């Protein structure tokens, strides 16, 4: 497994666990209140710290174990995998944007839009990293 594939696994798991916790622990009963908006900001702090810490620790650990591989530039296969993953993530991103635009007509609270936007970005990111992992494993 290459250095980049390992860091992709770390990113995927960190995203899934951190935002999984966020969406399960978020106080949905108060989503329409000002406290609901504040909760989004407050909960994003530990989520961001968890993701950044896991990514940094994983990258450092694997870079120390295989420094030569960590310093290698992306080759054409890896670039191609990244392009495909980003392309696939475009679809959930656009779908989420449309859902958000339609939701505006229903006059939800800012907390709902914030969470909807965040879910859109998280799903798109999971699709991007997940599909890249799939292509790393399966080839194409």
């Amino acid at each position: 497994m290459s250095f980049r594939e390992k860091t992709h696994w770390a990113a995927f798991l960190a995203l899934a666990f951190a935002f999984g916790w966020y969406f399960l622990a978020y106080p949905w009963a108060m989503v329409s209140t000002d406290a609901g908006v504040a909760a989004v900001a407050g909960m994003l702090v530990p989520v961001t710290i968890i993701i950044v810490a896991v990514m940094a620790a994983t990258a450092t650990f694997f870079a120390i174990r295989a420094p030569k591989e960590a310093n290698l530039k992306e080759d054409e296969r890896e670039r191609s995998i990244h392009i495909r993953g980003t392309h696939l993530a475009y679809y959930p991103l656009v779908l989420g944007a449309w859902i958000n635009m339609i939701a505006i007509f229903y006059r939800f609270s800012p907390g709902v839009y914030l969470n909807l936007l965040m879910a859109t970005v998280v799903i798109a990111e999971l699709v991007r990293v997940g599909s890249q992992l799939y292509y790393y494993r399966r080839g194409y």
Partner: protein
Amino acid sequence: MAQLPFTNDIRMLRFLMFEMTQGDLGDRVGVTRQTIAAIEQGKYSPSLEVAFRIAHVFNKPLEEVFRWQKDID
């Protein structure tokens, strides 16, 4: 995964070249060991440039490293 319309003899050529490793070949071609492994296994279709670079390492013409499969149009 669709099967690539060509095969290659990279594994055998590496063996004949003093058992060169995938990593060594990757270093000389400018790609990762995993990419060489993917090419060998027919999981990745390399660019023309990388294909030529691989053939150049073995000092062979391209068609002696990569071969079009006869049963595919």
